């Protein structure tokens, strides 16, 4: 005769075992459900975009409404211009703040700066656009690439600061001491030794910041504003790849929809390339030669 207690334990065990299996199935299902849109998005980008990617697309500016053909050359150039302006002040300030936090900021004030950088990171990009509008567009009286650059530059700073601080902290103290021991001044040590040792990691951080802001649209809506023509002047409204994709996507023209997919494909290729380069650099070890 089976022991009633042991048979009860066996019964429980079946229930618990099936919960276990169910949990695995649910979690695995979640993974599949999440990967589906990823595959779908990349798939559609390729499927709908690749056909329109041709030399004309990359070198021509948009044609007037109703005409077919034309491209996004000015938008690609505009994105480059805006990113350039953004990095002119975003990169130095970001690296400088990172240096401050790593080398001078192990105190309460440094904590405040660190915290504020995190806060800045979480500000919605459209709000940053409003601020850039207020300080540049309103002052100048017109939209401009400069305003767009200011907005994106502000957004780059927290990412770069964080990455720089982290990379500098990874440099062993003994390397700095070796420089001090040679009578090298502190500022020189920080720049020529510490920063140089961490340089590939810092560059990685900068590239990550680029990848992040290159796809931003919201802050450009009322700063750079967009432009159907070529523009290299920083004080004029400028086209940008992300803006162009948005404008075309919500338009009623099939022709423009087609080009939106192509533009989106270019954008995602650029971003994936940057992110992959970052991953490879991280894998190879960011501090060359330190044991």
């Amino acid at each position, binding site marked *: 005769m089976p022991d009633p207690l042991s048979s009860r334990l066996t019964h429980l065990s079946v229930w618990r075992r099936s919960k276990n299996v169910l949990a695995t199935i649910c979690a695995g299902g979640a993974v599949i459900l999440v990967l589906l849109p990823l595959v779908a998005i990349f798939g559609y980008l390729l499927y709908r975009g690749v056909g329109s990617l041709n030399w004309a697309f990359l070198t021509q500016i948009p044609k007037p409404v109703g005409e077919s053909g034309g491209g996004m050359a000015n938008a690609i150039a505009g994105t480059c211009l805006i990113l350039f302006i953004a990095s002119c002040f975003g990169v130095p300030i*970001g690296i400088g703040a990172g240096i401050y936090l790593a080398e001078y900021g192990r105190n309460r004030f440094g904590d405040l700066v660190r915290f504020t950088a995190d806060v800045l990171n979480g500000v919605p990009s*459209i709000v940053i656009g409003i601020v850039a509008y207020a300080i540049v567009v309103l002052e100048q009286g017109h939209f401009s690439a400069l305003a767009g650059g200011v907005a994106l530059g502000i957004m780059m700073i927290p990412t770069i600061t964080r990455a720089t601080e982290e990379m500098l902290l990874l440099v062993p103290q003994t390397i700095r001491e070796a420089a001090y021991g040679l009578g090298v001044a502190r500022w020189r040590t920080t720049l020529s030794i510490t920063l140089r040792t961490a340089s590939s990691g810092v560059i990685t951080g900068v590239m990550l910041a680029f990848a992040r802001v290159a796809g931003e649209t919201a802050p450009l809506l009322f700063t750079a504003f967009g432009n159907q023509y070529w523009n290299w002047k920083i004080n004029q409204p400028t086209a940008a790849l992300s803006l162009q994709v948005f404008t075309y*996507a919500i338009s009623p023209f099939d022709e423009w929809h087609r080009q939106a997919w192509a533009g989106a494909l270019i954008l995602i290729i650029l971003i994936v390339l940057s992110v992959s380069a970052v991953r490879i650099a991280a894998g190879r070890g960011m501090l060359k030669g330190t044991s």
Partner: protein
Amino acid sequence: MANRALGAPRLPGPQPVAESQVISGARAQPEPLINAGSGHVSDRLFHLAMLGCGVCVLGLVGLIIYELARGSSLSWHAFGWKFFFRSEWDPVNEQFGAWAFVYGTLVSSLVALAIGVPLALGVAVFITEMSPRWLKGPLAFTTELLAAIPSVIYGLWAIFVLVPILRQYLEPFLGKYFGWTGLFEGAPYGIGMLAAGIILAIMIVPIISSITREVMTAVSQQQREAVLALGATRWEMIRTGVLRNARAGILGAIILGLGRALGETMAVTMVIGNRPEIARSLFAPGYTMASVIANEFSEATGNTYLSALIEIGLALFLLTIIVNILAQVLVWSVTRGMPARSHA
């Protein structure tokens, strides 16, 4: 006590190194090659410059608050607190009330959480505890890839792929079988609150799942083993040994996802319908705080109009900051506190 030693002949020691290594004719007098300065001034200047960069960061946030406050003062004086509780949005007559947008923001974010949180947790649990080792890296990488996709591309895909699916398959299905809840009534346009909620859900999964993975990994191995040693199944171990201990951090991750959803602009603008309406049904179009700014800012005529939009921006800013700070505190409490507790 210390003894002062005097000069004395040298001790015998090891043999000198081979001749070739020795420089013949040692220098008579060392010459200080460097007459370089003390570096004091440069050190000070450098410190100040770096400090200046740090102060810039503070200044930027201050600038944001200042400009938002300044820009919204007109609207504030015109409408006061009630601005956020009235739903009249009439640019022609200069009557503005942001309730429709607040409602839209909250509802779309809630729908996003309702869909996205279970998915994100499932992914996190799978990657951390269930996946075979060789799969962990690729899976983690692909979820992070989702985070790298710009909002406008999500929106593009949503307009041309997601919305037609909703319009033709999902919404009729939901309307037929779940219409009685009141959430799925009305014509299935595709465009509307549900579309916005779904695309938002996809967008917040990466951040919730990556933070959740972080806090789950912060739970010590000893906690897991303790539960397993009591005879638990793997799922029971995950539930009581890991998730329970990490729950503050997981809550933080969810709130971080909420923060992201609140501020999300482009993808939402492209599929939510952009009508300042308040409806119970998720099929109806809506409008969020970020979307109204995106759509109407560059064409706003009149100072009150612009000021009203900036005031919405200010509210959005404050909302996301509070949410993000709360989330950081929660996540911190697990990733910092955990190692200390496990020693008990």
